[in-house]
């Protein structure tokens, strides 16, 4: 490490809560969520934008938080998997993942949920191909793709009833 570590103040809203933090400029949003804010639901894995385990929503759009500096999120609104449940109740996607057996080891689940959430906001009634495309940036090492797609489609269907 060369020289002093540079830090900057940032203000972000995480899961509805305003946070003012002093962050190292070379730390990613993922680092800050997990280490500074202890929100460890967002997972760290490939660190090259390929697995999607670190997926969070920034100003309504999903991003790989391992590929974004925390300072770039200054002023942004962030939603992580910890923000999906409301008043102690799982959100419909989380419940569907459990019901359909879409969670094996669970490591990819937070990222899958965030990607699925973003997909359904943009397109409440996706077909199978659209679900596959929406979740193409999220790998599941346990191979629960079928169950994950089922879970997402079941929430979409329930919404149309």
């Amino acid at each position: 490490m060369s020289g002093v570590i540079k830090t900057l103040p940032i203000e972000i809203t995480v899961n509805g809560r305003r946070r003012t933090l002093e962050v190292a400029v070379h730390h990613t949003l993922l680092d800050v969520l997990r280490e500074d804010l202890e929100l460890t639901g967002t997972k760290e894995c490939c660190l090259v934008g390929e697995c999607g385990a670190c997926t969070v929503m920034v100003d309504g759009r999903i991003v790989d938080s391992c590929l974004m500096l925390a300072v770039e999120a200054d002023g942004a609104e962030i939603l992580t998997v910890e923000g999906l449940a409301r008043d102690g109740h799982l959100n419909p996607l989380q419940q569907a993942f459990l019901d359909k057996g879409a969670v094996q080891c669970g490591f990819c689940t937070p990222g899958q949920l965030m990607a699925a959430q973003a997909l359904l906001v943009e397109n409440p009634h996706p077909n199978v191909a659209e679900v596959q495309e929406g979740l193409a940036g999220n790998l599941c090492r346990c191979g629960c793709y079928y169950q994950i797609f089922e879970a997402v489609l079941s929430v979409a269907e329930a919404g149309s009833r």
Partner: protein
Amino acid sequence: MRTFAYERPVSLADAVALLDSHGPSTRLLAGGTDLIIRLRDGSARPGMVIDVKRIPELCPEIRERDGVLTIGATTVMADLAANGLVRRHFEALAEAASVVGSVQIRNRATIAGNICNASPAADTAPPLLVYGAVVVAAGPHGSRRIPISEFFVRSGLTSLEPNELVVAIELPVPASLTGAVHLRRTRRRGHDLASVTLCCSVNEAGVTRLAYGSVGPKPVLEQDETHVLANPSAPDDAKQVVLERMFAEASPSKRSMRASPEYRMAMLRLLGSRAMRTAIERLAEKRGAQA
């Protein structure tokens, strides 16, 4: 990741001044989908990172004026793919933007980052070449316009000066009806760069333009003025001769782990013929819609 100074200029003049005074030790940061990886693996070790996303002149905006579409440097792939003007006039560019990486990547990856990174596999390069894009660059001596065909030098290198940055990309709206398509060959959707990228356009005047990437140090543009390719009644072997001539510049690397040179050449020919057919079909559809 090593630490660095982080600057977030809010004017083009400030950004250029930073670039000019700190020169080679700086790196511009747009969406970061290429740069953050390089900062982490140590292949880029800048003393200063200049975030360009708050410079108003580079803002993610797409507008049409006097027959020219101007795309702000920080426009992301997701917005490029969804934009009505791009889809109407530059369908192959919209297609290219829609196949970059995954949703997560497309929400961050910018058009300027894609061309400035200068990967031979950059998906927007073939359509930008085919549509005759112009790169608007700014530096200490003002701005200049670089034809995209003079922008790519070799893998990782563009004709930008170290103290210049890309402000926008301009696309002349085609004067005559044009059918175009972008195709590519990858091992896996969402996670891999292409082993062949190819864009083809055909216009009413019978001119075919073909650009391809990932088969040499930089993407290549060719134009068929003989009108043979666009002519539906020209015999197939005559077309093959013209296509072969267009692929003469392809020189796929033997060292790539993604695909062998033989495979890339085979795929280039296949995608070339397919793209030709689709471009002609699309032109016919547009003619039909006009009639």
